[in-house]
């Protein structure tokens, strides 16, 4: 932020307060039943407000949901960044901290996690392909993987030139233009693998089998990190 913001008027303060209440009540509905249960009418009821009054803050349910998705991404990304703060451990260990923070957030906010990464097939608006706050977390992951892979004799390609091109473009959009396609591929690999395990864990699929998801994740990260230096 730049400079001292001007003192908000009473009207602005009230508006900010109501906005905060809308966010809190929306998250309460989502956390209890999932985002599909969130409607402007249900929200208004839970706040003892009229629906038209809510519409003065958000022109549509989609606009509200997009706002909540952005907030949730930010909460997730903040949790991940915080896990790394002040850590002087080796890059591989810091990848572990980052991923553990991701999983912990997902387990604590399972419905919000579902809103971000599942439930998209139904009535949810798409992100629109624009940058999300999650990109900041991916950039952290890319930096750590680049540090792990430093000095590796392997060339930086994945063996698939079309995919290399797309990965290069993605890395540039993360403001990491010097990232090899290989490192970008491994960053995505870590994400898709961790998401797969956490997703199955959230359904309860590991409970019956008595499998500790964190241990599966550790081995998966080790395996992905090895792919940094494996021959293409």
């Amino acid at each position, binding site marked *: 932020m730049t400079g001292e913001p001007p003192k908000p008027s009473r009207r602005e303060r009230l508006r900010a307060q109501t906005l905060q209440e809308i966010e809190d009540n929306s998250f309460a509905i989502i956390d209890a039943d999932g985002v599909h249960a969130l409607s402007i009418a249900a929200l208004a009821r839970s706040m003892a407000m009229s629906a038209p009054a809510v519409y003065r803050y958000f022109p549509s349910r989609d606009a509200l949901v997009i706002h909540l998705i952005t907030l949730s991404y930010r909460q997730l990304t903040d949790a991940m960044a915080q896990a790394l703060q002040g850590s002087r451990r080796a890059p591989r260990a810091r990848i572990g901290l980052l991923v553990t923070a991701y999983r912990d957030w997902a387990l604590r906010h399972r419905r919000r996690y579902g809103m971000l*990464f599942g*439930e998209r097939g139904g009535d949810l608006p*798409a992100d629109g392909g624009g940058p999300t706050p999650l990109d900041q977390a991916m950039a952290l992951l890319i930096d750590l993987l680049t540090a792990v892979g430093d000095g590796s004799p392997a060339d930086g390609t994945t063996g698939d030139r079309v995919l290399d091109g797309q990965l290069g473009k993605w890395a540039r959009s993360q403001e990491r233009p010097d990232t090899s396609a290989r490192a970008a591929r491994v960053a995505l690999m870590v994400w*898709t*693998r961790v*998401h797969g395990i956490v997703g199955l864990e959230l359904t309860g*699929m590991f409970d019956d089998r008595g499998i500790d998801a964190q*241990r599966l994740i550790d081995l998966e990260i*080790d395996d992905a990190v090895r792919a940094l230096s494996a021959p293409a």
Partner: protein
Amino acid sequence: MPEQQLTRRDRYRRRTVAEIKEAAMAQVRSGGPEALSLAAVARTMAMSAPALYRYFAGRDELLAELAVDAHLALARTLEAAAAGATTPAARLRAVAVAYREWALAQPHAYRLACESPHGCVASAAQRSMNVLLDIVAEAGAPPDAVIPAPLRAQLHRWNDGAGRRGHPAGVRHFGLVWWSRLHGLISLELAQHTVGIGIDPGLLYRSEVETMVDSLRHGVTAGSSR
């Protein structure tokens, strides 16, 4: 039991249950598990809602049954794909391709089976898992020794289902990892995340499948990066 040995009443009941499930699945296919409403199912069947409740105690029970059906349909698809290929590597690829095609063709059924708590029916999911486990076992089990002891013990305790031989921990680990990797990619593809960042999900999927074909040869947990 074959139809003709059932009483008239049981036959009627069986047909009604099938019809309810069909109508409910049509709703899930078009709007996802969240869209299922028992009242709407009753309406399409020209039935009263209370009458419908004589067949299913509630929405959750109906969704759980639909999830089992979806798991079994997926398992049959994977079994056919595995049977159509001759080497473990070719089977691995064929099953992976069939898994993705099935999910993309009916994304909501996939979500019900693999992304909702309703789909968490161990015995139903196990049948697909057994397709994977058999391929891994045929390829030659990756060594157990490289899996950390606590996880190895958990994998040992895992039940493969009635009448199945117990697979070694290395095979089960590979099977689980295989499933979670494919699931992670498909789940993010269905939610438009992969396309959203400008990556062709098909290429990413193929690249992960080839990684798995390689580790099937070398053992997925072989070596250590630490």
